C-alpha cells in the first residue's frame, strides 16, 4: 500500500457555487478538473494523506490583519471566510502535529489583499495566508515566519501587510512587473525602514522556464531561508507561471512546480492563482501534493508536456543569474543598510495610490511609520477612496515597545472623526481592534 513519507493534510475547497462573475477566471469551474484529477489519482486513499473539512475564520481573525472599509462583511463574502478558514485549518493541523505538512487547495485567493481593504484587487479581498499566519502567531506563539510566493503575479498584498515586520520574511518570485499586473515587485522594494531586507522580490523575465525557477530557488530562496531560520515556511502556491496559463507569459510546468516544492519543503502551502484550469492545474496540484507528501511525482506531466519546447533562451538565463546576484547581495547587506535608517528615529512618511482592478476602486494612502530600534514600529495609514470612504488605520505591532504602543493610542485619541469618519486601532499586543466612528 502506498504510504506518504510526510503525513500531509489537505483542505480542498473548490467553492463550486461561487464566482466573481460568470465568465471571470475566478469562477465555479476553476478547480473542477483539479478535483477530477485528485479523485481519480486516489490521493485521499494514500496512507498519510488526510483530508480536512475547512473551518471558517471569524471577524476577529480578519481584523488581526485587515482594516476593512466600511466593515468586514462589506468586503468579504462567506467564500472568503471559508477560503481563509481552509488555510487556518491546515495551519492548525500542522501546528497540532496531526500532520507534518499541509496544503490548502482553496479559492478565492488572497495575496493581492493589502492592510486596508476597500474591495477586490487581483481577484483577492482577504489575504488568506496573512489571516492564517497571524492566527497561528496568536494561538501557538510562533514568531518567525517566511512566506515564499510562487504565484506569477507579484504578491503585493502580502508584501504590504509585512512591509514593516522584521519577523516575517516575504519572498516573491514573479513575472517582471513591467510586463504584468500588478506592476510592482521590483528588486528595490525591500521593506520599510524598520524591516529593511525582509521583503525580497525576485522579478523574472517572461518565458522563464523550469531551469530559471529552480535556479533562483536553489541559489537565492534557500540560502535566504537558511539565514532567516523561520519557525514556519508558508508557500503561496500560485500556479499561473505555467506555460499554458492564459493570463501570463511564463514557461513553468507541473514537474517544475513539484521539484520546487520538494526543494522548498514548505510546512504549509496555500493555493493562489492559476487559470489554466484544464491543462495545468490538475497536474500541477497533483505534483505539489505528491511532492509535499514525499511520494514519487516523476510521472506527473501534462499531456502536451515537452521539456525542450519550453526551454528558456540564453538571454533569459543570463538575466536571471544577474537578478539572483543582486538580490542575494542586498540580502547579505541588510543589517548594515537597516541600521542607519533606524538610528534616525522620528517619522517616515510615504504617499501612494492603490487601484482595485476587480472592483474599479481607486484609493489614496498616506502612511506614517514610527522609526524604532526596539520594535517593528507603530504606523498609521490615512486612506481615502473614490467611493467616498475615509479611514484612519492605526497599528501597534505584535511586539511593540512601550513608546510605540503609546504612540498608537495617542494617534487614536487625537484622530478627528470629522476628517476620518472611521478610525480603527489594531493593537496586536493586546489582540484588540478598537474603532471610533464619526457621525458623518
Amino acid at each position: 500500500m502506498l504510504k506518504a513519507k510526510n503525513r500531509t493534510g489537505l483542505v480542498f475547497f473548490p467553492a463550486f457555487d461561487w464566482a466573481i462573475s460568470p465568465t471571470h477566471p475566478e469562477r465555479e469551474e476553476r478547480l473542477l478538473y483539479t478535483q477530477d484529477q485528485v479523485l481519480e489519482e486516489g490521493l485521499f486513499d494514500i496512507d498519510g494523506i488526510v483530508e480536512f473539512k475547512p473551518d471558517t475564520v471569524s471577524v476577529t481573525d480578519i481584523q488581526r490583519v485587515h482594516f476593512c472599509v466600511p466593515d468586514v462583511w462589506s468586503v468579504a463574502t462567506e467564500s472568503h471566510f471559508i477560503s481563509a478558514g481552509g488555510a487556518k485549518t491546515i495551519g492548525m493541523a500542522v501546528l497540532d502535529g496531526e500532520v507534518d505538512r499541509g496544503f490548502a487547495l482553496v479559492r478565492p485567493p488572497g495575496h493581492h489583499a493589502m492592510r486596508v481593504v476597500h474591495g477586490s484587487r487581483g481577484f483577492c479581498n482577504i489575504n488568506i495566508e496573512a489571516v492564517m499566519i497571524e492566527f497561528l502567531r496568536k494561538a501557538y506563539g510562533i514568531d518567525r515566519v517566511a512566506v515564499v510566493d510562487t504565484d506569477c503575479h507579484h504578491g503585493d498584498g502580502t508584501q504590504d501587510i509585512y512591509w514593516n515586520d522584521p519577523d516575517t520574511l516575504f519572498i516573491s518570485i514573479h513575472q517582471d512587473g513591467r510586463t504584468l499586473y500588478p506592476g510592482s515587485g521590483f528588486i528595490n522594494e525591500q521593506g520599510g525602514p524598520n524591516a529593511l531586507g525582509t521583503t525580497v522580490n525576485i522579478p523574472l523575465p517572461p518565458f522563464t522556464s523550469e531551469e530559471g525557477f529552480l535556479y533562483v530557488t536553489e541559489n537565492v530562496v534557500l540560502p535566504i531561508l537558511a539565514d532567516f531560520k523561520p519557525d514556519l515556511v508558508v508557500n503561496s502556491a500560485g500556479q499561473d507561471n505555467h506555460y499554458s496559463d492564459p493570463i501570463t507569459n511564463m514557461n513553468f510546468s507541473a514537474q517544475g512546480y513539484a521539484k520546487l516544492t520538494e526543494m522548498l519543503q514548505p510546512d504549509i502551502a496555500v493555493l493562489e492563482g492559476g487559470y489554466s484550469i484544464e491543462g495545468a492545474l490538475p497536474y500541477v496540484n497533483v505534483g505539489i501534493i505528491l511532492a509535499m507528501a514525499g511520494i514519487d511525482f516523476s510521472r506527473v506531466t501534462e499531456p502536451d508536456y515537452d521539456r525542450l519546447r519550453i526551454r528558456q533562451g540564453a538571454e533569459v538565463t543570463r538575466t536571471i543569474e544577474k537578478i539572483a546576484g543582486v538580490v542575494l547581495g542586498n540580502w547579505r547587506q541588510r543589517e548594515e543598510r537597516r541600521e542607519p535608517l533606524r538610528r534616525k528615529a522620528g517619522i517616515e512618511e510615504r504617499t501612494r495610490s492603490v487601484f482595485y482592478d476587480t472592483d474599479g476602486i481607486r484609493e489614496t494612502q498616506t502612511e506614517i511609520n514610527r522609526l524604532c530600534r526596539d520594535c517593528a514600529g507603530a504606523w498609521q495609514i490615512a486612506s481615502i477612496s473614490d467611493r467616498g470612504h475615509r479611514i484612519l488605520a492605526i497599528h501597534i505591532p505584535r511586539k511593540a515597545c512601550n513608546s510605540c504602543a503609546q504612540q498608537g493610542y495617542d494617534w487614536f485619541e487625537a484622530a478627528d472623526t470629522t476628517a476620518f469618519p472611521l478610525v480603527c486601532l489594531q493593537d496586536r499586543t493586546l489582540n484588540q481592534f478598537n474603532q471610533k466612528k464619526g457621525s458623518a
Partner: protein
Amino acid sequence: MIIGLDVGGTHTDVVLFGQEGLIKEIKVPTDPADLFQSILHSLDEITSGVRFAEIRRVVLSTTLATNAIVQGQIPPVGMIVSAGPGLDPELFRTNPHYFTVSGAIDHRGREIRPLVENEIRGIAEVLKKEEIRHVGVVGKFSVRNPAHEVTIQNLLAGSFERIFTGHRIAGQLNFNRRIATAYLNTATYPIHRTFFQAVNRSLTEKGLNVPIYILKADGGTMSLESSMEFPGQTILSGPAASVIGSVAFAPADADTLVMDIGGTTTDIAVIRNRVPQLHPFGARIGGHRTLIRSLETRSIGIGGDSVVRIEGGNIRVGPERISAALAYGGTHPTPTDALFVLGKMNGGDRHKSLQGYQALAAGSGTDPEELARQVFEHACRGILAEANSLVDRINSRPVYTLQEIQEGNRIRPAHLLVMGGPASYFAEQIGKMVDFTVQVVPRCQVANAIGAALARTTCEVTLFADTEIGTVLAPEEDFEQKVGKGYTDQDALRTAAELLKKKARQMGAVMPELEIEVLERQQFNMVRGFVTTGKNIRVRVQVKPGLIMDCETVAARLAN
C-alpha cells in the same frame, strides 16, 4: 412469503416472513467448510411444511466472497491496466498477472495516447499460456471515456471466459479503487458462479422455483443473474443485513445509531431518517479499498465474549475473544461473566464467573461485584466512544460548496437501537450514559435474516455530460449519446432517472414505484477565453437502501 437467509461466521439464520409477520425462524451453526450444505439444510428446514407456491422469493446473504478474499483463496486472473500521467500504476498491482499497457485518457475523456493493439495481443497470448480464463480491464478516466477498455475487451473476446471492465463498476472517479474492484469481481466470479449455480440447481430440483436474490454490502439486493456481473458486491453483506433488519424501528425523522453486539465484536452503523448511511467511496476488504457500495460501519473488538484483563490497575476489554464466558465453560473472564456476577444474567454457572472476577480483583481491594460493574461500564463506554467517533467521521466529511457548509447537515443521534446476544443488558447500561432514547431491536436474534428478507433492490447511476464535446455518458450503463448545447442538468436528471429505473428493474426490483434520490447535481459553465463554450454536468442518483414494505407495517408485524 419471503425467505431471508444470512450465513454468518458462526450461525446461519433463516426466517420465513409473510403477511402475518415472522412465520418461522431458525438458527443453526454454520459449517465454514461447507457453506453450500449450511444453506441447503437450513432452507430444507424453514420450508418444511410450507407450500412452495406461496414463497415469492429467497434472499441470500453469505460470507462466500468475503471468506475467499480475506483468506486469499482466489484463483489466478489477469489484469490489464492503462494509466497515463500520474502515479505509477505498478503501485496498484493486485496480483501476479498484472500488466500495464500504453494508452491514456484525460479528465475530460479525451485520448492523450493511443492504445497499442499488438501489446494487448501479446499479453493475451501470455495469459492464455498460463491458462487464465478471467481478465479484468481498467483504464484511468475510463468512466469519462470507456473506449480503450472496450477496445481491449474486444481484442480479448473469444479467448477468455469472462472479461470485466472498470467503467461498468461505478461512475465515481478513483483509479486505484476501480482496479481493486475489477480485480475482486474477476477473481470471485468463478467461485460465486459455481456456488450459486449449484444453489439454484438444488432449489430447482427441490421444486422451489422462485427468484433468488443476493444481498449486497450496501444492504440492498440484486437478482442472481445480476450478481454474476458484480460478484464483488456480495462482500460484507452480513453486517448490512442486521442494519436493514433494524431500519423499521428507527424514527422516520431522526438520526439513529445501531449497535450489533456480538461475541467478539460490536458493529456500529448510522441511520438517518430510516436510511442507513453509505460509505462515500466503497468498502474496504482484505487490504483492498474498493468502489463497492457499502454501509458506513465501524467494528470494535468489544463483545460479550471479549477477554477481560487488568493491566497496571486498568481494566482492558478485548480486543480479542479467547473463549466463551466462564459461565458457559470458557477459560477466561468476559463481560458476559460480569453480567452473571451482577446477577443480571442466569442460565449458566455463576459460580465460575464469580471465581474469575475474584481472581481478577485479587489484591486490588475491590470486591468482585464492584469490579464486574466497572468492567461492564468500561465495555459500554468503549462501544459508545467508537460510535461517537463514527459520527464525528461522518460529520467531518469535506463538502465542496458554500451551500453545503451553510446547511451543516450534521448527524445528531437521537435514538439508539441495540441488537445481539446480550443486547438488553447493554441497552440498559448505555441508556444511562446517553441523553437519547434506547431500544432493543425486536426479534434481534434474527434481525440479519429479517433484513435480508425485506431489503429492497438498490442501485446507483452516475451521469456525466460535456456539452462542449457534445456527449452525455453513463459509463456503468454502457450509455452514451450525442447532446447539443441546450442540454441542461434538468435533462441530465431525467435521463439518469430513466436509466436508474431500467437498471433497478434489471436487477430485480419489484416495487411498483421507485423512490429516486438525487445524490449529486452539479452544472458548470465552461468558459474558454471569456466565452461560454458549453456546460459540464454531473448527476448521481440512487435507489437508497431500505425495506420493500412500509416500515410501520413491518414494525407492527415484528413487535407482536
